[in-house]
């Protein structure tokens, strides 16, 4: 209940109702204001249309054709989509990223939440340094991160393998059957800091009165974290989760880089995005690649929507 109050209280200044009141108050200036508003968003809208909407529509149109080496280009309707839904390679890739999501995201979110709460508790020394240190990996381009971790994981030459060798043990097969876990580790390393910052910022926005009230009621730091901070973090957590759904299903850079190290483990259809890329640029099946991309887009939309539906329902009950 307290969440609802907090939400509507903070959102009040920009509700449509107050907007209408403002407009009425200024008399007939409304339309001109509207025009100026459009002018302000125009640069963005133009770029958004040219760089996003048009290519998207184009790709959609494109996915209804099939261009063949023999026989040229024909309109095939939903053929590419029927093929995609019965394509075992695409399904295997989707299954793999779904598994990745289930393993990696809870771990990363738990870590991010832990660090955010720890920073917010003001009990840490060198809080700024710690915050920066955890956030730093996010500033490393993911390609560089993948290269770096690829070196660390390397059998024979990698430091972990060499260390294991020194103490007479065998290093785990990071680039073999543990590959998905190895990638999950890279992604966790990269994005924990990012999620931590989002959660930390949300924590800072919690009104201090609530803490005071909790203290008056005799709540200790753990109780405050559990009963006040985490419930109030729900919107920020949902946002982080939706980002993570999208990020997981679009996994591309890390497997693409690691591929040179373990070409037999990371096959061309390892993730749906990698599959679409290889369809287009190796197999020249541009049309089918477009259809696969749309299928992936729908899966992500459906996933995000289901997730939000589930969390909303839970918050209402």
């Amino acid at each position: 209940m307290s969440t609802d109050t907090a939400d509507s209280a903070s959102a009040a200044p920009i509700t449509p109702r107050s907007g209408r009141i403002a407009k009425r108050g200024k008399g007939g200036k409304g339309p001109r204001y509207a025009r100026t508003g459009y002018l302000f968003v125009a640069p963005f809208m133009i770029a958004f249309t040219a760089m996003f909407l048009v290519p998207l529509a184009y790709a959609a149109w494109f996915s209804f054709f099939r261009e063949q080496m023999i026989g040229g280009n024909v309109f095939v309707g939903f053929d590419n989509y029927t093929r995609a839904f019965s394509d075992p390679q695409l399904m295997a890739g989707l299954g793999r990223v779904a598994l990745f999501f289930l393993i990696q995201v809870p771990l990363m979110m738990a870590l991010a939440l832990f660090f955010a709460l720890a920073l917010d508790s003001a009990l840490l020394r060198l809080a700024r340094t710690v915050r920066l240190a955890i956030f730093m990996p996010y500033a490393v381009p993911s390609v560089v991160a993948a290269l770096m971790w690829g070196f660390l994981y390397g059998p024979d030459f990698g430091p972990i393998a060499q260390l294991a060798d020194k103490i007479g043990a065998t290093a785990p097969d990071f680039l073999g059957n543990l590959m998905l876990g190895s990638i999950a580790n890279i992604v966790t390393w990269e994005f924990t800091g990012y999620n931590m910052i989002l959660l930390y910022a949300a924590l800072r926005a919690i009104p201090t009165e609530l803490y005071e009230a909790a203290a008056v009621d005799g709540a200790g730091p753990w109780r405050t974290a559990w009963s006040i901070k985490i419930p109030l973090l729900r919107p920020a957590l949902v946002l982080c989760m939706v980002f993570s759904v999208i990020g997981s299903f679009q996994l591309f850079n890390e497997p693409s880089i690691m591929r040179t190290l373990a070409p037999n483990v990371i096959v061309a259809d390892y993730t749906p995005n990698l599959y679409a890329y290889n369809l287009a640029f190796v197999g020249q099946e541009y049309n089918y690649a477009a259809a696969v991309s749309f299928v992936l887009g729908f899966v992500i939309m459906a996933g995000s929507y289901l997730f939000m539906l589930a969390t909303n329902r839970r918050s209402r009950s």
Partner: protein
Amino acid sequence: MTPRFRRRTGLAAAAASPFAFAACARQPVEPPEHVSQAQIDDAMRTPTELNFWTWVPGIEKQVALFEEAYPDIKVKVTNAAQGAGHYAKIRTALRAGRGAPDVAQIEYEMVPAFTITDHLLDLRPYGAGELEDQFVEWVWAQVSGANGEVWAIPQDTGPMGMLYRADIFDAHGIEVPATWEAFADAARTLHEADPEVYLTNFPPSQGAFFSGALWQGGADPFAGSEGPVLKVDVVSEAAQRVADYWSTLAAEGVVSTDPDFSDQWYQAANRGKYATWLTAAWGPVFLQSTAASTSGKWRAAPLPQWESGDEVAGNWGGSTNGVFNITEHPIQAAVFAQFINTDPECTKAMATEQFLFPPTKALLEDPEFTGLELEFYGGQKVNEVFAQISATVSPDFQWPPFNDQVRADYGPTVGSTIAAGGDAAAALGDWQDRIAEYAEFQGFTVEEGS
């Protein structure tokens, strides 16, 4: 995790398709029956700029020699990318109808990929037909069309041989194996004597190596494919012999199965994990720069043979220069492609300075080239070894019109199965199924061998 770096990658890939500017496509050149010497002379005196896309280091040398010979022609060299990226850009530009180069570097295995889409200019009318005698027979076969067209001018080749560590062989009393049977025995002996060392490494995702191995093994899986008919037979007896062989050695654990050209592999080569590298004529100079710490210990020899007493090799790598038929300057482009690959000074520089292994008979017999002694190989005349191997490459090996896809399907089917020591015959069957399925999607009439 955020979507910041990855969002829409797939969509962008699809949207960057070659359809985009199809409306303003240039019409391809209709090749004339014959171009007279007067026409050629005239064209070569017309100020022209040619675009040449290549990844060959130091090609400026040959370009300078050409511009010296034909001062009115300027050549703009662009290094767009190497391998797959290079072809993707060319395809996009060709389909867009503008921005494509006049002349480009094309590997032998990719020549059919550009003839199936009708993008290469037949160079016969421009005098290329008369060049046949200058080139080794099997190389010429690689650039020749079914009706005698000359689709490209060969630049370098990669006849396959074996580089071996003489010191490791000596230490374990291993003779240079002349047959694959002897090679397998040596692999077992060596690995038993020293578990840290493998006689060789089978690179599981290196489709080009496997193609070369098929070539040597007498398999010619796409033989007879022409136009809309694709013949595919990667399950032939000859192919099974090759795949079974490697799968057996991998199952016994007497060869390693590391991905080649990876950090791990470079490291292992320097450390002496592999006693041989089954490679091509470009391998010796490459190894010299990447495994410098092992200088003086290596020697070169022909590949082991399937039948004792045979002398057969396959080819791995090498490339050509082809002219695209959208060019506005077909004569100049054709003359350029021919000049840099046949002019004695140009080709000599390629062979002795850029270390491209030559396809021309003249150079392969040139004592200055074959007599070169390399210290890395204990002063052995490595070029001479490979020049002799080059003469034993079979002329019968045809590439499919979509070799990049065939390669992509090789790794997850055959490559990984062999590396795991699995059922090679079944894996070849999977590979064949994938190739056939792709070909049918592309509109080919597929004729499968079995």
